[in-house]
């Protein structure tokens, strides 16, 4: 596979690991923001190649994990209604809300369908004019443009049987909130490459400048991650706090302005809750009034509800890098991918699920 295999080369990985070991002179803690990166780190054993004193903290960038319980409950309530087709990305189906999950709603007769692109939902709405077609629009800046395109097209085409349940989150405000916490451990960030492909690197300059932390935009393959770690460590060792782009085969400095314009047109920035973490100011997107007719919550008259999370779960501390999955007393016992208690265990890309799947006995990176 061209453009992928080259970035999984064992010889080059060993070379980068040697350079990292030479570059590190004291303990550092770097957070990879995105769940896809956490997954790659554990899947390829990247952490096992690192110098002892370099600790990886796993960030909150898993869209499945941080989707609030109340959104899942609302999605299930909509899917259970007759005359509705609820469409979702595949990995949302198994995620438990406060009582059930979408796979169970489907088994009980709800029409729940997996789509691979939000635009598939348009075709479904056209093909089923007598039914309400609802899309569970979740994700970060990465999915926002395609989700915005769906809503924009639905409006242009005058589709009255299509609506969206929006749960869009924004990464930089979450990073800032994490760094505002006095006990935080993060000294540098690997930013999520795909988010930056849309937003560009500008939003991270404020984070790097204000909090004096280096931010390196990173891809998702082993060499991408090792290269970004090397750049980040070199900054830390030199006392610099800049934004660097180690994923320039995908990310342009100004991102994708056309995609951003579409997102701005359909969505407005709003305060929102993150599962496991809590409410973060200006960290989400909501439909603008011009597109309010497509809001599924209003269309189905769903009540606003807040669902409590299990007390034993330390998801918030895991998602912000304060604790490792193995520090949790419930890890691997009461809390497994089959019976998740909290956000990082519900999706394969959550840190707890990744440790459970790839390390089990270990439970902690270092």
């Amino acid at each position, binding site marked *: *596979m061209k453009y*992928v295999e080259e970035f*999984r*080369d*064992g010889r080059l*990985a*060993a070379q980068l690991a040697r350079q990292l070991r030479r570059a590190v002179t004291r303990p550092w803690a770097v957070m990879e923001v995105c769940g*896809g990166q956490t997954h790659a780190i*554990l*899947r*390829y*054993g*990247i*952490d*096992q*190649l690192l110098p002892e004193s370099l600790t990886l903290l796993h960030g909150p960038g898993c*869209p*499945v994990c941080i989707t609030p319980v109340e959104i899942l409950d609302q999605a299930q309530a909509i899917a259970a209604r007759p005359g509705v087709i609820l469409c979702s*990305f*595949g*990995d*949302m*189906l*198994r995620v438990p809300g406060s009582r059930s999950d979408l*796979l169970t709603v489907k088994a009980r007769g709800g029409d729940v369908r*997996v*789509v*691979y692109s939000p635009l*598939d939902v348009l075709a479904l709405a056209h093909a089923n004019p007598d039914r309400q077609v609802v899309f569970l629009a*979740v*994700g*970060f800046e*990465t*999915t926002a443009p395609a989700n915005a395109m769906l809503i924009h097209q639905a409006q242009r085409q005058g589709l009255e049987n299509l609506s969206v349940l929006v749960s869009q989150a924004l990464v930089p405000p979450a990073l800032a909130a994490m760094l505002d916490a006095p006990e935080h451990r993060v000294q540098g960030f690997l930013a999520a490459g*795909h988010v930056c492909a849309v937003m560009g690197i500008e939003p991270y300059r404020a984070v790097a400048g204000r909090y004096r932390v280096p931010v390196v935009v990173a891809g998702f393959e*082993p060499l991408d991650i090792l290269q970004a770690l090397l750049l980040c460590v070199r900054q830390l060792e030199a006392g610099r706090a800049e934004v660097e782009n180690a994923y320039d085969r995908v990310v342009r400095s100004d991102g994708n302005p056309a995609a951003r314009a579409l997102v701005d047109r359909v969505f407005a920035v709003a305060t929102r809750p993150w599962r496991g973490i809590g409410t973060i100011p200006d960290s989400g997107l909501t439909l603008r009034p011009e597109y309010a007719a497509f809001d599924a919550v209003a269309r189905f008259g769903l009540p606003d509800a807040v669902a409590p999370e299990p007390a034993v779960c330390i998801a918030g501390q895991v998602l912000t890098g304060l604790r490792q999955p193995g520090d949790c007393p419930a890890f691997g016992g009461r809390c497994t*991918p*089959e019976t998740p208690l909290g956000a990082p265990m519900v999706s*394969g*890309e959550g840190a707890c699920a990744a440790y*459970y*799947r*790839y*390390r*089990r006995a270990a439970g902690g990176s270092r």
Partner: protein
Amino acid sequence: MSAERGQAGLPEGPQCPLAVGGHEVIVMAHGGGGRLARQLLEAVFFPAFEADGTRVHHDGAVFAAPPGPLAFTTDSYVVRPLFFPGGDIGKLAVWGTVNDLAMCGALPLALSAGFILEEGFSMATLRRVVQSMAAAARQAGVSIVTGDTKVVERGCGDGVYINTAGVGRVVAGADISPRRLQPGDAIVANGDLARHGIAVLTQRPGFEFENAIDSDCADVSGQVRALLAAGIEVHCLRDLTRGGLAANLVEIAAGAGLRLRLEESALPLADEVAAVCELLGLDPLYVACEGRFVAFVPAAQVPPALAALRGAGAPCPVMIGEVSAACPGGQVILRSRIGGERLLDMPSGEQLPRIC
């Protein structure tokens, strides 16, 4: 329903649209045991399954068993679409059961076939499935000697479900079981992984891939026979169907209480299969195959084992790992191509394509 499915990925060649008892689709009476049911047998099943001179019995077949141990297995087949690049439900139903016997070191003596047909299912499609089964059985050198048909109401089935069972004779001297695994055994795969699951998935509505990926659906009994005939001391065999390589190896490791080690760089994967998995966020190690298996053999016998497999038509046999040491509960460890290690685990339910 059946019309839509029947059109996707149909094999080339003439089709006989001959209706049975004036019906172009299955009706409830085809399962009723009366005249229509008899007509269905005589028009569709007997001509296909008796072409090799076998007499198909509806209640049960009687045959003499050769001396020595026998193997007996059964499996049910549900797949959508019914026809896919490289195979169809009929081939799966015959070869799947033949392969299960092969994994016991047995060569097939006879098969049974049970059909659950949905009211409204196209007679022409049924005929093509049945003919495909007959061709697959001929190729595997086995006969379908008994069978059964039932019809369920429209909406209560998915066109056609097939169950087959098979009896086979264990090759003299073969003793195949996870208990026979030993530290130092090599793990050999007969070909590239994950083809079948991806071939079927990419034929479903919602996917528009330009190039079709062929399923690996195949009869592997000849390859097993070749291994045993070459004098390879085969300790264990496992076909990599549901759950793919990973789930099957985890099960074997647990059964044997041993640690298995795999080399990621040695795992055979076709470029196009790897690309689809990458795109959808699926782990190919958990994707089902229908004509792939692993053999556990003494390390010293790897070269002749690979040669025997190749000689019997295995597409790209290769050593993928080894049995390392005792380990309570069993464990499968994969060394990644950059040198890190991770556990392979049982999957939690079905793999679901991810968001980003």
